[in-house]
């Protein structure tokens, strides 16, 4: 592979996964803090204000990194992938522009109003600004997924014979795509699950130390519900998303299962060691019929294998290797699903202990929530994206445009190496103050009730 292309792909992967460590927290926590503040406005119970203030600060520390790393996302299509941008701009550019106009303006303006408006806005208007931010984050997720899901499942377009480029033919078809409407709820549930896991982990740290019990018990209970509902929603929507994938991108699911030969009924692989030379698995531990069940809701259906799909791709698109990186897709899929299952378990335990009034009694659960819950959320988020993007390869737009040759022809490898190293270093360095501040404020805990008057001053710059 051409060095500039390889470096550009690494850069895209690194900056996107990094961006996506912060954004899911934002997606969930804005809603959760908005709910807390609403509870405070309605009940005037000071515990809710202390919660709002405490989690709100952590929300802001996280939000900042998500915002600035998002700028890179928008610029790098043109910087690194100019041939891709020329080809898809007619379809792909529109949702990006709409995202900026509909979502970014709302998020940034209303977050500014929320941070600085404590004394200037009435409580009702103040909480309204946070609801607007929460709505903005969701709109942002929607519009970027309009663009992203089109790459997975290109519909509603025609290739202009004069220019050889994709052009929009049916906007409605693009925004009602079944891929989009599987990915969007999946992503939103991910947000709640991730924010729930982080919130539960931080609360658990305090509960284990018997700190701020009133605030932390309430927070842990709320977070457990968000985690359980979020992670269960992720699993359910993931199941539907998987079925859409089987239908429109059978190669990705075959790769996720290391399923070389078409099977009927098909088995679900638990552990496999691939042997790509001979197009088979050296070792494979399976659950019979389970893949059929997952793919089409019955125990007998046929699931197509890599070898058949590769032959079909060669027939349709000419000679080439159309098999994605199997190690990454197979293990990425398993790590994603495994993390999701762990998160459901931890959320369920949290809800169970809460209902029995024993949320802070089991030290092992508190440790599990802190160390395993948060780690699972990040691993699940990263591997989920890596799986869905790497599983689409070698295509950048599935079965329409190959990734190879879509990077910028005028950007030499040395430039890409410069940006790859520069951005990776910068991102790595930025993680230090971000984590430092997050841990500092997380450990400091909520202020006491008497400090509540300072809420306005404590948030300004």
């Amino acid at each position, binding site marked *: 592979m051409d060095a500039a292309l390889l470096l550009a792909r690494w850069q895209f992967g690194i900056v996107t996964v990094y961006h996506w460590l912060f954004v899911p927290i934002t997606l969930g926590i804005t809603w959760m803090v908005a709910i807390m503040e609403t509870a405070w406005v309605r009940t005037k119970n000071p515990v809710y204000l202390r919660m709002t203030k405490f989690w709100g600060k952590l929300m802001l520390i996280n939000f900042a990194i998500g915002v600035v790393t998002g700028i890179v996302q928008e610029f790098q299509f*043109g910087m690194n992938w100019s041939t891709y941008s020329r080809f898809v701009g007619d379809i792909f550019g529109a949702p*990006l*522009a*709409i995202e900026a*106009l509909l979502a970014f303006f709302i998020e*940034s303006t209303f977050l500014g109003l929320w941070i600085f408006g404590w004394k200037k806005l009435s409580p009702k208007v103040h909480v309204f600004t946070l609801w607007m931010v929460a709505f903005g984050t969701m709109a942002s997720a929607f519009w970027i997924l309009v663009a992203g899901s089109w790459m997975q499942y290109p519909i509603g377009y025609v290739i202009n014979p004069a220019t050889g480029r994709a052009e929009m033919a049916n906007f409605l078809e693009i925004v009602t795509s079944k891929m989009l409407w599987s990915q969007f709820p999946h992503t939103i549930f991910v947000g709640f699950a991730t924010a729930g896991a982080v919130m539960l982990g931080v609360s658990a740290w305090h509960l284990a130390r018997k700190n701020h019990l009133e605030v932390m018990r309430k927070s842990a209970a709320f977070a457990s519900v968000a985690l359980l509902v979020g992670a269960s929603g992720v699993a359910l929507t993931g199941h539907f998303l998987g079925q859409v994938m089987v239908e429109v991108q059978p190669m990705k699911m075959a790769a996720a299962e290391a399923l070389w030969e078409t099977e009927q009924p098909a088995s679900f692989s638990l552990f496999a060691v691939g042997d790509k030379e001979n197009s088979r698995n050296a070792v494979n531990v399976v659950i019979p019929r389970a893949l059929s069940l997952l793919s089409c809701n019955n125990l007998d259906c046929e699931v197509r294998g890599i070898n058949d799909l590769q032959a079909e791709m060669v027939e349709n698109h000419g000679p080439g290797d159309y098999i994605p990186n199997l190690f990454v897709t197979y293990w990425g899929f398993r790590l994603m699903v495994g993390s999701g299952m762990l998160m459901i378990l931890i959320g369920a335990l949290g809800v169970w202990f809460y209902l029995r009034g024993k949320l802070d009694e089991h030290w092992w659960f508190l440790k599990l929530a802190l160390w395993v819950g948060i780690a699972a959320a990040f691993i699940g988020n990263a591997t989920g994206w890596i799986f869905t993007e790497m599983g689409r390869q070698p295509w950048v737009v599935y079965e329409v445009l190959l990734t190879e040759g879509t990077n910028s022809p005028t950007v030499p490898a040395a430039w890409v190496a410069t940006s790859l190293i520069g951005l990776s270093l910068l991102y790595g360095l930025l993680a230090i103050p971000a984590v430092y501040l997050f841990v500092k404020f997380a450990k400091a805990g909520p202020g006491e009730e008497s400090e509540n008057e300072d809420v306005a001053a404590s948030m300004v*710059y």
Partner: protein
Amino acid sequence: MDQGILNLETLWFVLIAVLWTGFFFLEGFDFGVGILLPFIGKTDEDRRVMINTIGPTWDGNEVWLLTAGGAMFAAFPEWYATMFSGFYLALLLVLVGLIVRGVAFEYRSKNPNAAWRSMWDWAIFVGSFLPALLFGVAFGNLVRGLEIDAAGEYVGGFWALLNPYSLAMGVAAVAVFTFHGALFLTLKSKGVVYDRAVSVAGSMSIAATVILAGVMVWSYIQGDGGVVPGLLPILAVALLAASIWLVRSKIFAWAFALTGLTIAAIVAAIFIGMYPNVMTSTIDPAYSLTVFNASSSTMTLQIMSVVALIFVPIVLGYQTWSYWVFRKRIGREEVTTAPH
């Protein structure tokens, strides 16, 4: 073929010019405040006053850039692709600047440690200065024209972008934004920050006018087949010169309006001068990207037009409201009640 100006391509060209104008007008004073941070903000308190004058609104201002970029991608993919890949290393530096600056605003005052704060203050300064300079350089290159080949790709490399004229445009951008930012501080701060902003606005009014006048004269005499300057640059310099008198008479609100108009006049001069080109080729005029050969399909432009028609007024509405909410001046007492 003359396609006239009553078409969607031209409409989107104008809208993108408006988005860049909005960005330079709004983020221009944010950049100015950031550049002035080490000069006007002698103490930590003063620096906090300055940062808090733009605190609630800087991020919304920056979204004008993201919308301009997104609109270029959607309406003129060829322009977006050629410009963003062609200006690669320059844009990388812009990104680095915007990243460290954005994080700095949020993180700086969340830790009382002096070294921590000084690190982020530097990030705000560099993250304001660098993008201001480089956006000036980028537009200078659009004015001059670029080595665009038959395939519509920029093939001139990185160093050719740093030509004397474009660098001068960069310096002019820094000077005008710094003046614009000083005037913003005269309207939004009180106390010692206000006093220093008044004095800086006085000297910057002269410096910015002289620098801008020099660069505008240069624009008229360079005959590289780029932009035809027209009369707007003269108007821009005249507006800026008029602000010298307004600053002396302490009529800062009007002076601020004039620096805003100066910025708008320069962006308008560049876009009107380029039209119908969006990137002029110095290799062969036939290779230039134009609003017609770089644009998206009619359907995409129509959809985008409807979306813009509905949402741009709404955005303007709530951004204006936000400026209204935070209309009061910021002084030491607004930032010292914090427990830090």
